[in-house]
């Protein structure tokens, strides 16, 4: 880890961003109540307490996605990661948590580490996750049973792996968007935002 203390490499950046997604998705699922709160356990990471799922199916799914995502982050072929929350009764998309990923493709050629300490990156990540937690105050309540899906926007020339398939963008009809904080590892920049369905009362 001595190398990471000095700076950050492409590999380290990909791992860091993938880790952020893992924690971020977990906390969204916990905060939005997609899975019951008793299936989550408390862990401390980024100097803050976070919720991680204990549901074996969900765990398996998330590890599958995150490992694949790490690969793509390393190849700099991923553009967006979107967490879509769908209402099961009406099949309507209610929320879209979008993480735009800007890859610095020049990092692929030059393997020299970038000058940015892990601590500052983690600080940025922490503030993003805090903001995700805070969004619950203004997002409309999910009253019906919902399920989530993870969409990955990739470059067109990417070969889709066996387990994956193409999907629609799952755009919300009549949405309100809120931009959240962003963070950068100086190789990958992640802009986060949430779009939610406009309710009639609002």
């Amino acid at each position, binding site marked *: 880890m001595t190398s990471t203390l000095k700076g950050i490499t492409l590999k380290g950046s990909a791992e860091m961003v993938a880790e952020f997604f893992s924690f971020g998705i977990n906390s969204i699922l916990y905060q939005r109540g997609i899975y019951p709160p008793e299936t989550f356990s408390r862990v401390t990471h980024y100097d803050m307490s976070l919720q991680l799922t204990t549901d074996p199916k969900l765990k398996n799914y998330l590890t599958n996605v995150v490992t694949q995502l790490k690969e793509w982050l390393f190849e700099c072929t991923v553009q967006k990661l979107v967490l879509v929350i769908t209402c099961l009764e009406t099949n309507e998309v209610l929320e879209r948590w979008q993480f735009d990923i800007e890859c610095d493709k020049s990092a692929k050629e030059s393997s020299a580490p970038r000058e940015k300490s892990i601590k500052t990156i983690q600080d940025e990540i922490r503030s993003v996750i805090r903001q995700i937690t805070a969004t619950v105050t203004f997002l409309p309540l999910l009253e019906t049973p919902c399920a989530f899906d993870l969409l990955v926007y990739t470059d067109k020339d990417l070969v889709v792996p066996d387990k994956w*398939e193409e999907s629609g963008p799952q755009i919300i009809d009549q949405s309100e968007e809120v931009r959240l904080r962003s963070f950068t590892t100086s190789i990958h920049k992640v802009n986060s935002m949430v779009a939610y369905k406009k309710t009639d009362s609002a």
Partner: protein
Amino acid sequence: MDLEDDTTVLTTLKSFNTFISRPEHPQRLMERSAGSGFLQSQYKRSMELLEAAERVHTQHRYLQLDQEKKQMELSHKRARFELEKAASDSARDFEHEVDRNQELLGQIKKLEEKETEVTKNLSEQVEANRALRMNLEGLNKKLEERDTKLNAANQTITSLKDEIREMRQRIQNQDLTISARTLENQELQEQLDLQRRKYQEVSKLCQSLQAAQSSCSEHVIKIKDLERRLALQEQDIVIVKSVKSEVARVPDLEKEIKRLRDDNTFLRESRENCSLLKEEVEGLRRKLERMEKTKEELANMELEKEKLAEKLQAWENLGQSTGLNIRKPEDLSREVIQIQQREIALKEQNYALSSRVRSLERSQSELRAELTQQGGRTLEDQKKREAQDSLVWRLQRRVLLLTKERDGMRSILESYDTELASTEYSPQLSRRLREAEDILQKTQNHNTEMEAQLTKAQEETGALKLQLQRVELELETIKKQQASAADSCSLVTKEEVNILRQKIEDLEKERQRLEEENNILEMRLERHNLQGDYDPLKTRVVHLKMNPTSAAKQQRQQEVESLQEEVTRLRELVRSLQDGGMMGLSHDDSGMKNPSLSLSLPPSKEVQDLRKQMESSELRNQRLKEVFQKKIQEFRTVCYVLTGYQIDITTENQYRLTSVYAEHMEDSLLFKKGSNGTMQLMETEFSKTLGEMVALHLHHQKSIPAFLSAVTLDLFSRQTTV
């Protein structure tokens, strides 16, 4: 226990009532019989009284009749005695009869009860019989079926036996064949041995043959080898011949080599040349590339040029349209400069003109002021003139008046003159006349003066008016001049400037509009991006096939299906229940048909079972009650008949005994069971009359049965005697 107690009480009461109601007849009869005895004695007494009366009245017949009467008395006494005897006999008989009657009634009751019992039994038996018959029929059917089966089985057995026999025969046959076969087999084995031996011999022969063949093949190989060598030798010979011919050709070849070497050197040189050429070619190629690039650039330039030419054309057009001779930018600039200069000059002109205009305006205003002054003055003059006119007019009137006066005076004077020609007043008068003439002269002079003044003033005003007109004309001309000057100087430049300004404004507006549009589009793009839109040419969206949403959807689908199935099932069930209604049997049948239905029905079945059990237990209870009642009744009647007492339980531990021979219905004995099990006699109206017996049997002998039997005997004797 309470229930049984109640029943016993009820039954005892009932029986007692029946008992009570029955024996009334005989008692009445008894009374009648007792009454008849009493009448007899009365009768006798009356007879005696009658006899006494008769004796008083018929003393004389007394003696006659005394004997007769004594005989009659004797006979009457005998008859009375006989009658009494007969009465007592009949009473006794009657009592016997009553007893018998009671017994018979009891018997009848019992018989009736028995009959009802029997009928019940009979009905039960009949039912049982029917059930048994049904069973029997079922059993018969089964028996028949079994018989038929048995028959079939027997038939099959016989057939099987036949088969077995056949099989045995076959087996025997086969045994026979097997033995034959074994025999054959032995023979064949012997033959086989023989064959084997033959085979061994043959194999030996074969081996020898093979050895021979191998030697033969070796020979053949040798032959072939030799043949090959021969061929090789022949080939060698041919080669040698060819070599020889080639050797003959060697000098030629050497020449050729030399030539080739020359060629080689030449080629080498040429190769060097070639490399040089190649370099050149490369250089040329590069040049070509550069040329191409330059060509492209040229094309681009041409395009640009065209664009520029277009622009130029536009400019030229503009020039043409504006009527200026613009061919080059310098022209344009020159033109512009010229225009600017011209503009400046014009502006200067303009300024000059405007200053002139201003000065003119100032002078005009001054002139106006003057004019107004002049106007004022003319007005004053006019007023003066008017005043003078009026004055003149008045003066003329006065002159007229004076002339008239003068004329009058003259006439008067003339008259005077005529009258007083040359009188003393004439000098005076002439003086006065002269004086008047002088005054007239003066006024006339004044008048003319005034007139002259008036004409002068009029002339002056006319002059002023003329001046005013002149000034006005001047002003107008100046104004016209000014307007024309302004028009003429800025006519061209202003138009141009206006056009250019308008164009600039238009362009500015367009630029702003485009900027706004651009902003809006950027905003929209941003918004689309935020909403998750993407460029399908550059991006593709992927997700895991097995994602939680699809899994959840699938699960939900399955749930819905299962629920729908259940709903249809339940709907059917409800329908069937509605159809079934009261028909429990058909309900059961449907349950048998539909397994799902029977699954949901066990509770009702259980309930039915329980209900059946309950019914049977209730029935059993009822039966037991009936039996107990019957037995108790029987026991009680037996007790009653044997002991002569009807025992009733009035309250807890209190027993009331009523004798068969009791004289009154309410004559009864009351016993109380003590805590230690001993019975104590309670005091009743009836027991009070039995003081002796109580003292003797209870206090002395201490035996209740003895007391009771004594009471019975006493009552019996009381009833039978009299």
